């Protein structure tokens, strides 16, 4: 990892850049007209002084993701006077990024996205000072995240969003009355795009819903039943998935797991899928489709990224300057038929695991087994965990009941929770890739029936496509 390098860059460049007095006089002229003049719609008490721009220069902003949205975000924010910007991304540049990630050139392919993006902005925009982190978000701790004033996300991964959301909530401090201490709050501005659709949202811990509150907004991943793939394929996708999930493992063409970026792998899958499709008379297996299915490719275009990142950057400016009331709190965008936006106030989820600060009670049949509890945590739309590890706290001592890496715990899956020492209203602690902090659950048993009972909490369903 090149984190060391970027740290060095940071210390050296901060010696040169970032000093407020160095700006040529007219550089921020446009911006200063909205910052240094009070308007009829300015929030009450807004003091339009040059100090606002000075604060923007020093405001410490973390841009998470240096992809389509991230490139746009650092550009917009740098032009709007943010001079203490940090950008983090674990990815390297791929050729297919170049149709929208405009800070990268052919010669940059293979290099760190964060580092190339930061270097480009620092070169192009005078007095910009972007620090790059070529690393995973999980590589940084509470001290790192708590040092930022605002976090902006341009991510394609839901798991990473949830992790970050939960990190920010874990940084909250509460006073004696249980109210959030304002200086522990870090607002998150989050953007997402898919094709010609996108959304931007503002998350202000304690006031707005958080990522976990409306997890159901994210479209579910398409999974085809295995029996369809194996014995009754009808679509070209079925043929491709069959080769990916079954034939690859059986025939072991390269003796390694599938690498979606290796053209030889995609080619093998494509050819086998064509063979299978012709066997069943199915039309439409193409190389492009094969690649799309294998890599779960989401279509992307420069314009949508520009629009959504711009909406996010405007919100960052509002939060940092108070020159305008930030959006409350969610905007959908689509320009496949005309240009359409829909802004609304998404509701908090009263019993949200991340932001309600209330331990969650799960209700199960008395005979429930550990495996069923884990399955529930994975499949419930509320939790959607990946690989939960379960720890029991019995009589003040903790004991690992299940962890994928510990094969000794695997036999517990068949055990009843009762027999594992979890009494009615007993507690389990669950950790998962979706959250940096472990979650505590209280298990409550129902007498009759089997399986999971009524854990479907009041869901406020908001369709992802409420455009009309």
């Amino acid at each position: 990892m090149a984190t060391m390098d970027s740290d060095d860059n940071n210390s050296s460049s901060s010696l040169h850049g970032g000093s407020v007095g160095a700006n040529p006089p007219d550089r921020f002229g446009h911006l200063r007209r909205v910052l240094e003049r009070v308007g009829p719609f300015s929030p009450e008490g807004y003091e339009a002084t040059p100090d606002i721009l000075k604060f923007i220069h020093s405001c410490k902003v973390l841009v998470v993701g240096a992809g389509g949205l991230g490139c746009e975000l650092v550009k917009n924010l740098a032009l709007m006077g943010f001079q203490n910007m940090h950008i983090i991304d674990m990815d390297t540049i791929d050729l297919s990024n170049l149709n929208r990630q405009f800070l990268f050139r052919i010669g940059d392919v293979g290099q760190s996205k964060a580092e190339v993006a930061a270097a480009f902005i620092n070169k192009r925009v005078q007095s910009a000072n972007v620090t790059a982190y070529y690393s995973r978000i999980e590589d940084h701790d509470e001290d790192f995240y708590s040092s930022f004033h605002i976090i902006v996300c341009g991510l394609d991964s839901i798991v990473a969003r949830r992790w970050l959301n939960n990190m920010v909530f874990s940084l909250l401090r509460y006073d004696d009355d249980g109210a959030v201490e304002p200086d522990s709050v870090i607002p998150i501005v989050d953007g997402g795009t898919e094709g010609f659709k996108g959304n931007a949202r503002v998350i202000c811990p304690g006031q707005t819903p958080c990522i976990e509150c409306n997890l159901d907004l994210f479209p579910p991943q398409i999974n085809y039943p295995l029996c369809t793939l194996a014995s009754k394929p009808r679509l070209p996708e079925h043929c491709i998935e069959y080769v990916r999930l079954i034939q690859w493992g059986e025939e072991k063409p390269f003796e390694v797991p599938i690498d979606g970026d290796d053209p030889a792998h995609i080619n093998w899958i494509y050819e086998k899928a064509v063979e299978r499709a012709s066997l069943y008379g199915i039309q439409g297996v193409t190389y492009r489709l094969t690649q799309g299915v294998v890599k779960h490719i989401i279509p992307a275009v420069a314009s949508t990224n520009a629009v959504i990142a711009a909406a996010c950057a405007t919100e960052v400016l509002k939060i940092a300057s108070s020159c305008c009331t930030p959006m409350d709190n969610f905007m959908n965008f689509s320009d496949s038929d005309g240009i359409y936006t829909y802004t609304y106030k998404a509701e908090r989820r009263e019993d949200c695991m991340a932001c309600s600060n209330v331990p969650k009670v799960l209700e199960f049949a008395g005979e429930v087994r550990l495996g069923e509890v884990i399955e529930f945590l994975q499949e419930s739309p509320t939790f959607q965990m990946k690989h939960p590890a379960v720890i029991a706290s019995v009589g003040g001592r903790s004991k690992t009941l299940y962890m994928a890496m510990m094969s000794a715990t695997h036999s517990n899956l068949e055990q009843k929770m009762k027999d594992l020492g979890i009494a009615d209203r007993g507690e389990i602690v669950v950790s998962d890739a979706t959250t940096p902090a472990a979650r505590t659950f209280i298990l409550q048993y129902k007498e009759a029936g089997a399986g999971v009972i009524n854990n479907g909490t009041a869901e406020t369903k908001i369709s992802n496509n409420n455009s009309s």
Partner: protein
Amino acid sequence: MFGLLPLSTMMGFKMMVSASPSPRSPEITEKTKKYDRQLRLWGDHGQSRLEKSHVCLINSSATGTEILKSLVLPGVGSFTIVDGYKVTQEDIGINFFLDQDSLGKSRAEYTTKLLLELNTDVNGEAIEEHPEMLLKQNPNFFNHFSVVIGCQLDEKTLVTISQVLWESQVPFVYVNCIGFLGWVRVQVNELAIIESHPDSTIQDLRLDVPFPELIAYMDALTINSREVAQKTPWLVLLFKAIQKFSTPSTGDSMDTTGCHPCHMKSQEKQEFKKYLKQYLCEVGLKDTDEEFDEVVKAANSALSPSMINSNVQALLDDPKSTKPEKTKFWVMCGALREFVANNGQLPVRGVLPDMMADSDRYINLQSVYREKASKDAEDILGRSQQLLKQAGLQGLTIVEEDVKLFCKECQNLRLIRGYPMYEEINSVPVEILQELAQNTEDSDQEMMYYLLLRGLLRFQGDYHTYPGLLDRDVEPDINRFKGTFTKLLNDWNATISAKEDCIHELCRYGACELPSVAAFIGGCAAQEVIKIITKQYVPLDNTFIYNAMQSTSSSFKMTRANS
């Protein structure tokens, strides 16, 4: 058509062929790799149109370069920047395609140079000249562009450019960003969209008007056991249930009023669904089978009448369909019109949704629809060529590929007929004024801002400056701008009055361009240009106002007033 081979035989066959030489793979070029993510949206044919296009940007402001950025990255063929201004320090502060070295140099040349760095496939040229001067030298200068984009235009130049482009039928996209406000206006004379890519399409199943081949196929199928029913697509089961339901001789207790289930009201439909469930049990399915659920669920959307939507009907009724003009689109519409007159229906699309079923039963059913779609397309092709001959349009050729796409998309055809901006600027915005007079609430803020942006153009025309450019001018300019706007409202005989606080807000902006607002509008406008060039997805018709203060927006259509 594929025979009903037992599946085991097919699987055995698979084992045999797996060792055979593998088929050749298509060639994957650097270009298709680079553009992969967008090719999934507009396809190779859309990309090819984009690569053949030449766009012109008038004035490379922050918004202007943002638009070109989102055109250069996806690979527009070439661009020309017409801009007579020199780079100022304020320009550098907001425009990413300028840097400190560009101060005092030609803005056209510098932005062209930095934009070209984005994509080596793209050509660009800079013309350091104001557009009105260019027009004086060469009135046809703009005629050869695919699209012209205009930023930072004063009212007079806007009117001139709009008229020139309207008369030469070159699409025009106008943008204006000021403070937290943005304005996008699309001006096209006429734009036909075959591939509108709707988010959801109504299934074309013809349950209420089955074609003979479909009836024959269905009649040949017998469903006599649970096992068979489980392997049968829901469409077949639904078809057979409807057939039985609608045939009075079956002796069923159901009262068939002669109304086809596709045309029933929701209450009657419930009755039919009861019958459907009964039928499914009769053929052997259990109500706990997932196949049972699938039929019942699918019936909800499948039981809708086959009809021609209003967009398509309007095309068929258009005089240009009756007497096709010399474009492929209108000739095919003319053919479609004849087809509908003869058959009462649009051509079959030939696209089925996935259904739980075994492979051969599904594929065979799909083939019935596909073959009918081919046949219908052939019919349209014949009629199109006939029309070409009759009208003496020999220079135009329509081939199978054109017709196949046209037929597949004929439900989703869209036509945009434009309204020129020069007329808009010179007329009373009647509908906006009416709308605002009726609603005093904030709900129509964007419409009020539209009027104020018009007022701003007028102010600039009168005073050759913008209100609030300097701090000390804000207060006096509020009154001056209010004067201009009130006069404009009077000229329009408007019953509404100028909104004091909105006027103040516009003067506060002092014609500033905020980078993030420029980027938002830039992204939107660029996509409109791409839609016009690729003739895919549906362009804005025709006005969009963005309000970044509230993070809201409105789209509306400016039209010729009827008075």
